[in-house]
């Protein structure tokens, strides 16, 4: 095959095409992770405004959501701003607060969800008795202790969300390393209110 032959040219084109597709896919995929990280910086600023008393501090002018809480954990090291609403669109930027559950500080269970491969990936390393801290809009920090880790099937099972409990429930997809999205399983971490400790 000569360098100017049609076969050679086809190979060049094919190669260029593959390079373009590869670059595009890697770029797009990485952008999701980059967005997940970058957004948290913008959210930190909006969170400060929230603590200062602004009702719905939008992290960027066209945002459809705003920070409602801050979730922290020492080991593994976690510091996340939680957004209002748990839609696909808000979850790209941070974990979302399920609107039908209580807000931190209100009576009832608090339920948060996040992407298993970005913000809530740390749930994989969470163990029983680990401590979580959730700061509400009023600035008070509530402390929680993990009491239950389990995998649930979203098609069959229900999560109790009664007013009687003050638990914090974190939900993400399972298995953590599945390549395919949209599986039916969910990893559910339940943490109960611990006696509020001083920061020591």
């Amino acid at each position, binding site marked *: 095959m000569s360098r100017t032959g049609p076969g050679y040219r086809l190979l060049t084109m094919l190669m260029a095409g593959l390079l373009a597709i*590869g670059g595009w896919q890697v770029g797009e995929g990485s952008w999701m992770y980059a967005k997940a990280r970058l957004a948290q910086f913008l959210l930190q600023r909006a969170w400060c405004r929230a603590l200062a008393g602004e009702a719905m501090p939008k992290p960027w002018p066209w945002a459809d959501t705003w920070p409602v809480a801050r979730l922290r954990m020492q080991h593994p090291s976690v510091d996340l701003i939680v957004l209002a609403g748990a839609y696909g669109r808000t979850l790209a930027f941070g974990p979302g607060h399920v609107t039908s559950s209580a807000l931190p500080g209100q009576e009832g269970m608090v339920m948060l*969800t996040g992407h298993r491969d970005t913000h809530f990936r740390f749930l994989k390393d969470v163990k029983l008795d680990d401590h979580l801290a959730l700061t509400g809009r009023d600035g008070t920090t509530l402390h929680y202790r993990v009491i239950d880790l389990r995998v649930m099937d979203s*098609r069959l099972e229900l999560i109790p969300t009664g007013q009687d409990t003050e638990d914090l429930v974190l939900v993400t997809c399972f298995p953590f390393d599945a390549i395919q999205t949209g599986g039916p399983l969910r990893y559910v971490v339940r943490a109960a209110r611990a006696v509020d400790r001083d920061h020591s």
Partner: protein
Amino acid sequence: MLTDRFCPLRQRAKTSASRLTLCAFFLSLALDAPLPATSCAEPGESLHTGIVPTMGINDVTEGALLLRTDQAGRYTPAPILKTDVHIAVTGTIARATVRQEFTNPSREKGDWLEGVYVFPLPETAAVDHLRMRIGERIIEGRIKERAEAKRVYEQAKREGKRTGMVEQERPNLFTTSVANIGPGEHVTIELEYQETVRYENDQFQLRFPMAVGPRYIPGVPVVVEGQDPRGSGTSPDTDRVPDASRITPPIHPPEDGAINPLSLSLTLNPGFPLAKVESPFHPIISLQEQNGGYQISLREDAVPADRDFQFIWYPAPRTEPMATVFTEQKDGASYAMLMLVPPTQHNNKTARVPRDITFIIDRSGSMAGASIAQAKSSLSAALSRLTTQDRFNIIQFNHTVRSLFPIPQPVTIKSMQQAIRYTEHVTADGGTEILPALRQALKSPQDSSRLQQIILITDGQVGNEEELFELLHQRVGGRRLFTIGIGSTPNSHLMRKAAESGRGTFTYIGNVNEVKDKLDGLFRKLEHPVLNNITIDAAGWSGLEQFPATITDLYEGEPILLALKADSLPAQAVLHGQAGTAPWSLPVSFNDATAHGGPSIYWARQKISALMDETYKGGTQEAIRKAVLDVALTHHLVSQYTSLVAVDMTPARPTDSPAAERDQITNLARAQDLTALASLPRTATSGQLQILLGAAALMLACLLWQFRRAVA
């Protein structure tokens, strides 16, 4: 040229080529590996010798007593011995009393089971009475203040009694758990609920769920074996029940007779003359009474419960609106329910009032997908039904507001073309700012000779309530505002109040797949207003409390219900209003129209919801709570401050069986509201997949490059 430029890279690429190939191999393994993990993690069928399939709570299609199996969330239905149903319909309100008998089919000694009673309810229904008899025990549902209900529950639990807090899981599913059902023991459950009858296409429809679910087959031995905690590793926790339960069905099945025999009777007091009554699936006997009521029962004493009972009644054709009154005396007060029914036939004599209709559509990011697609298609349908005397405008908003026209424009071919193009190009993106959109809609000039309707469709959280109400208060004038909330986020309360102050209605659409159906229905209704500016002449009534305070307009296809309470009711009252542009009035007689249960409970529900609204108007929590408690306890209603607690009235059985402890623990876990995980969004990005695909494509390009060099 090209190859020369890549020369320095060539050497490195060559050496890495083989490594990359290896990588690709591992990557492909990684791509495949998790897939089987996902599928094997699904819980398998818990039955090994399966005749009775297990089911989840969501599979329930009729009242059922589910017996817990060892697998979390899976149940076997207990055999139903019989069901008696009585339904009393007053106007558009139906009160149903259901009595069901179940049995624990196990014959093994000591096989005490725990069950969950599940009853699918129509969405508008609420349970207010409950009584269970389990063997010797009687469990009675009582309305208590919420805190007290919890105290009663906790106390009984400490004392080793079996109780259950009864709560509504989701609006359409009522459940309560029943612990300790002895082998062969019968469970009788009596339940009363009230619901609103559906009115659609000139027919009233009532449904009682009794469809075929998975059920047992008599006479065949069934063994339900517990699943190993093996459970495919989906449940790492270990507090699951370890021992398997064995269930055997009764040895005395009904001889060839009906399975689940059901008897049903119905009294119908429609409040207006009927053309006919009909039961499409079951033969019935219907007797007409003197006062216009009907007595209906199934032709056979007991029918097999194998399909829903459906009952339809058709009003006799009329061209004028009609008012009907039901009254009730209770505890020294008089309650009345006034129903204003639109005519069944369009009255051509009244001139059609031209309309100005403004659609406000939320196109924020959260509307993306089914919501916006369905809203668009019903909007196009609504546009196509406008006539040339009408005017219209479309406003779409996210964080910015876009308006098709500055003010509503007449319907012409050109404006229609513009509108259709405009609607087609709506895409969902960005945030939600309702206020500016509404302000834009309220800029249109007021015109009392036209019917001015504003339709707001959103799924967002509506903030700045005060500003919104202030705007409406100042600017709405004679316009009517209809609000539609989609999905789980809408601030239903606020949107309902906004619609009320705009003398329109609020429509809530919980399921995005129903957006088109519900919008179509609403748009069609709005085309035919029958009466406007309705008032009731209530001069000389003492202690009158009326809900709603301002009466909405009457539209074709939807009756208006007014709840009234007074110390004593007059013999007659007069309704005033406007039909098109002409004044209209109708005298209503309050005599000889007694009903039971319906009017007072309906009034109490309206009163509670009005009281709850006070919280948003700045009423003090404590005062509101007191007022709500007063109404709820008097009328035996579940509300925000009251719960129905099922209290065991008899001492529990001896607690020597190991099951007892376990039952108590699970009881507590059941006594809560539940959220379906399925309603949560999926929480995984496709980022990983994309990076892998991209990497694979890049590697392939590398290999190709090698190959190209080789052939060159």
